């Protein structure tokens, strides 16, 4: 039975939830407070309660506030409601109205999505100063204008990094008219920012010092030259700027300190003019500007006290040289700046701005990989992101962590990451830093850090480091988070770490399995991403014997079957089916296989999934059915649930599908065909032809599996005839003679042996009328070809010298040598029924000496001591009285030497097993 393990890099998504509070996350839940004490905690001082409330998520805050009247009052204290972060919540007008009484003094608000934006006005937070939103593609002019009109005290407005395509200059004008105190305006992806809008800002917002029109299509550069108040300006990623105009105008802006022109086509001459002419400018950020970078002769070193940040400058050194006494040189300039008691007022504005812009540009550059940045990322980019992760600005930290998660990924689909970059992150202490963030109490950081850890862990060395630094426990802890986004990324981390054998045990030990199963129950109705990742991680874990038992103990079978039955999302279905397949892959060592089959609706659901329009789902469902059919009762139940028809249909339709799907489709039919009744049904439903087609596949796994299925089918004479009629003999002969897989050759030979041991002939004669003669003619030809190939096949495993030696002496060593030469290692995994063993025993008396030899060869494979089912086969043979037949074959004068020696070995194997058995 096969098991599959696959890795997957978590998909990119942005941003998350943060709750204002001030306490560290404790990893272990050490307290067992189920036994209540005698103290009434209501006597806690009010300030203590408020501090405690400030640590909690909104949900827990509401719960705690509803426990008693005293705390209810404290729960609506103003200081708890200065800031709101609604990004991980469904925020609509109703929720806004219920929050409104507490939001009179709300200062800061973060939200996500246009629907939330529409609800903001219902908070009636007239004192709001800072508003920041992401996922704002659909936010409209009308919404934004109303928000501006209702919040006249607004000082800071940030929308992005997603493009706000539906926002036009009209809304910006409205903002200018309504919000006279505006000091910071950063908008992403506006199509057109015209002169009217900018002039309105210049006229009505005298305090506007920080402007960002990022990734816009058109910005009126002429008008921007009129905004005298501006200190910091970013037009990063904004196309079609007239740099000639810019460089002749903007240097006249009297207060301009920082300018960000990253990801644009600014020319060296424009950069030079800005640097040389502007009196006030201190930092020009021009990362990833191709035209500037092409000019290798360009140097900014001659501009005293002005810093140019670009791909070809040493950014750390630049920052250090300009801002600090030059004793401190390292990759922690931002940190140094924070810890130093610096009184440079400009600097205290510049650094936060720079952090923000750098993190933005780095993330954008990481998202759209381009050639030629390799060196930059390894030498500076990774370290910069790590440094930014220690910023005091939360959104910068989050973006830097997202950047780390993104820049290591080369190919999202195949989940491959860049080793050099991953190891650069590791070398600079990134793992410890990320784990530190993952442990922080802020959920936005937790999820971004977990995502970065997840992606980096695709690299085995990083995964090892993560495990060594205690990362598995941290991720298992985060997987228990009440915040969906955090839980999702943590599950993704566990998914990637559960690849391979090294960390499965540690994940189980950290309670990860229980956490993942609980995740499925917790988000069963509303979390595509989190469910997919939890199921994916469980699938990997279930590949391990011990872990699979734990998955079942934690209720995993029920959870995964529930997903397979009810979840409509294909990614989830795929992983759930894969997990069930892996759970069922330990047929002999635990009872999960049977347990899955007994779960109500499980088999029906899997059969249904084999009809999914999504190839991955079909593949994993077929794989699960393959593994599950190992159990006798499951096998019959699958057939009863329509499994035969479904799987035959799948095999018929998969001629152009991936080898993985083809293999599993054939495998599931193989598994089902173990019982003759199913075998007959498969033949009747038209399963023979597609299996023959699959047996012709180039892919080893596919044709090997198809050969197994055909072998089982050929047991039935009716099917055997069908195989002949559908042209299967030549396919099997090809496999038998030339497959790279010994197993495929072996099973093809056995299938041919079944087909031509005489039973089919009887069937063919009885079953057909007038065509009988012509058929028997073609049958004869096929038979000759088959037997010739069987003979060649068996001879390949027979070393003449060893045979001569074995014939001459009865010493065990000689026989052992023959056995070693003949042994097909994987054949030990095959398990035959009594009927099959009986058929080979009968075949020992077949008139054809080739079939005699073949039967003895097969029985030898099935009884070699140490084979997984050798004992089972030996006892079947004892029951069938095989010993007598074998002795006959071993002694027969007419039989070929090989048959006699093989028969002697089988006899010896039987004796061995009998002694073992009685001992």
């Amino acid at each position, binding site marked *: 039975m096969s098991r599959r393990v696959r890795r997957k890099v978590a998909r990119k998504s942005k941003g998350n939830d943060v709750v204002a509070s*001030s*306490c*560290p*996350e*404790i*990893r*272990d*839940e*050490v*307290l067992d*407070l*189920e*036994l*209540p*004490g*005698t*103290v*009434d*905690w*209501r*006597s*806690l*001082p*009010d*300030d*203590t309660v408020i*501090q*405690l409330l400030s*640590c*909690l*998520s909104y*949900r*827990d805050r*509401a*719960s*705690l506030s*509803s*426990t*008693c*009247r*005293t705390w*209810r009052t404290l729960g609506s204290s103003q200081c708890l409601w200065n800031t709101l972060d609604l990004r991980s919540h469904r925020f609509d007008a109703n929720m806004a109205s*219920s929050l409104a009484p507490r939001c009179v003094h709300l200062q800061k608000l973060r939200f996500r999505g246009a629907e939330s934006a529409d609800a903001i006005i219902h908070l009636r937070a007239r004192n709001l100063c800072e508003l920041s939103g992401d996922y704002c593609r659909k936010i409209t002019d009308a919404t934004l204008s109303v928000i501006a009109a209702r919040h006249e005290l607004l000082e800071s407005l940030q929308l992005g990094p997603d493009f706000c395509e539906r926002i036009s200059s009209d809304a910006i004008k409205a903002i200018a008219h309504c919000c006279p105190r505006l000091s910071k305006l950063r908008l992403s992806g506006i199509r057109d920012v015209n002169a009217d809008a900018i002039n309105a800002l210049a006229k009505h917002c005298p305090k506007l010092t920080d402007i960002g029109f990022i990734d816009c299509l058109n910005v009126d550069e002429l008008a921007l030259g009129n905004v005298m108040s501006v200190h910091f300006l970013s037009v990063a990623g904004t196309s079609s700027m007239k740099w000639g105009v810019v460089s002749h105008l903007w240097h006249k802006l009297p207060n301009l300190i920082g300018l960000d022109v990253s990801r644009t086509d600014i020319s060296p001459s424009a950069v030079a003019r800005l640097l040389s002419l502007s009196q006030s400018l201190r930092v020009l950020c021009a990362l990833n500007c191709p035209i500037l970078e092409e000019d290798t002769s360009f140097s900014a070193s001659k501009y005293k006290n002005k810093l140019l940040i670009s791909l070809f400058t040493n950014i750390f050194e630049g920052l250090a040289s300009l801002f600090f006494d030059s004793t401190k040189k390292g990759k922690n300039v931002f940190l140094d700046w924070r810890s130093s008691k610096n009184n440079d007022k400009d600097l205290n504005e510049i650094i936060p701005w720079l952090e923000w812009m750098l993190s933005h540009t780095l993330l954008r550059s990481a998202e759209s990989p381009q050639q030629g940045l390799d060196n930059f990322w390894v030498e500076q980019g990774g370290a910069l992101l790590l440094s930014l992760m220690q910023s005091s600005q939360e959104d910068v930290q989050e973006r830097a962590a997202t950047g780390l998660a993104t820049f290591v990924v080369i190919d999202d689909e195949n989940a491959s990451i860049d080793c050099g970059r991953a190891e650069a992150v590791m070398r600079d202490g990134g793992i410890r830093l990320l784990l530190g963030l993952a442990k922080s*109490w802020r959920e936005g950081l937790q999820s971004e850090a977990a995502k970065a850890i997840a992606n980096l862990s695709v690299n085995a060395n990083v995964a090892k480091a993560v495990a060594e630094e*205690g990362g598995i426990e941290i991720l298992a802890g985060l997987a*228990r988070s*009440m915040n969906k986004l955090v839980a999702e990324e943590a599950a993704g981390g566990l998914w990637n770490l559960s690849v391979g054998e090294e960390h499965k045990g540690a994940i189980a030990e950290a309670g990860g399995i229980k956490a993942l199963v609980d995740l499925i129950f917790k988000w069963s109705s509303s979390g595509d991403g989190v469910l997919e990742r939890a199921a994916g991680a469980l699938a990997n874990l279930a590949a391990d014997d011990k872990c699979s038992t734990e998955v079942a103990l934690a209720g995993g079978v029920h959870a995964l079957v529930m997903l397979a039955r009810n979840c409509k999302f294909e990614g989830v279905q795929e992983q759930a089916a894969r997990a069930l397949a892996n759970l069922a892959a330990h047929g002999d060592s635990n009872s999960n296989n049977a347990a899955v089959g007994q779960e109500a609706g499980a088999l029906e659901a899997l059969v249904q999934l084999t009809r999914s329009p999504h190839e991955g789902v079909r593949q994993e469902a077929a794989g699960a059915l393959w593994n599950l059919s190992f159990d006798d009762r499951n096998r019959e139940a699958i057939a009863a649930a329509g499994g035969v028809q479904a799987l035959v249909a799948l095999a018929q339709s998969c001629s152009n599908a991936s080898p993985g799907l083809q293999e599993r489709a054939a495998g599931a039919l193989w598994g089902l065909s173990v019982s003759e009744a199913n075998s007959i049904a498969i033949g009747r439903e038209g399963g023979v032809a597609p299996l023959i087609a699959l047996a012709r596949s180039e892919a080893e796994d596919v044709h090997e599996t198809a050969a197994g299925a055909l072998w089982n089918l050929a047991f039935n004479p009716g099917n055997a005839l069908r195989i002949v009629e559908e042209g299967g003999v030549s396919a099997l002969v090809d496999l038998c003679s030339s497959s790279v897989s010994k197993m495929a050759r072996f099973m093809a030979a056995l299938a041919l042996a079944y087909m031509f041991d005489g039973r089919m002939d009887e069937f063919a004669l009885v079953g057909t009328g007038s065509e009988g003669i012509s058929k028997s003619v073609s049958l004869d030809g096929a038979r000759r070809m088959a037997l010739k190939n069987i003979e060649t096949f068996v001879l390949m495993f027979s070393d003449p010298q060893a045979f001569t030696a074995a014939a001459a002496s009865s010493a065990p060593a000689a026989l052992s040598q023959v056995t070693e030469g003949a042994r097909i290692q994987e054949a030990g995994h095959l398990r035959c029924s009594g009927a099959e063993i009986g058929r080979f025993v009968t075949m020992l008396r077949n008139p054809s000496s080739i079939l005699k030899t073949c039967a003895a060869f097969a029985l030898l494979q099935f009884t070699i001591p140490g084979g997984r089912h050798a004992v089972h086969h030996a006892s079947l043979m004892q029951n069938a009285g095989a010993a007598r037949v074998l002795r006959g074959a071993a002694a027969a004068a007419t039989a070929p030497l090989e048959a006699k020696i093989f028969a002697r070995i089988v006899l010896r194997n039987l004796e061995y097993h009998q002694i073992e058995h009685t001992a």
Partner: protein
Amino acid sequence: MELLCIRQWISGLLPTVKKWLSAWCIKPVGGALVRQEPEYILLALMGSPLKKIMLCSSEKEIFSVEEQVMVQHSVIINNMIEDGSYNHEESKIPLDCVDSKTLKKVIDYCTHHTHHHNDNQEDLEAWDAQFLNVDSNGLYDLLMAANYLEIRNLLDLIYGTIKNMIKGKKIDEIRRIFNIKDHGFTPEEEEQNRKEYPHFY
């Protein structure tokens, strides 16, 4: 009188810390107690290479602690030492709302974190986890003591623990944890609560 003031502060409103401190700690607490405590005299006679300060629990038991340990962790004690209101010859700091058992734990915490602050993060966390392995009453006492003495990192540790305890729990479960029997809501309000947050119950 002093004791009353302290109690009031603990259980009640939010006076500024400094003000209350100067009110009670300038005056050393009566000498009679010192004589009743042989341990104190012994320590005083022996002298100590490290500067020590005396803390007195609600049971009037006296604990002698390295000054540095408490100064580093407790804002209150740091302030007292800095503004000179503690006299090393005569003073001891009365902590009438902290019992001996809790005070001993608090001192343990501060001592460990002073002497082991260079340990690796994991060991420290393991130690913290073990340290907070107490029952609900014990946790309450520690919280009160940490709050009283203003030991910021211990407070954060305790808040973090409580946060984990109630994370995702339903309201009735939280009431059990905090031993809240009389919530003070009218049946109508309780019903209103249930309506407003049905999934929390």
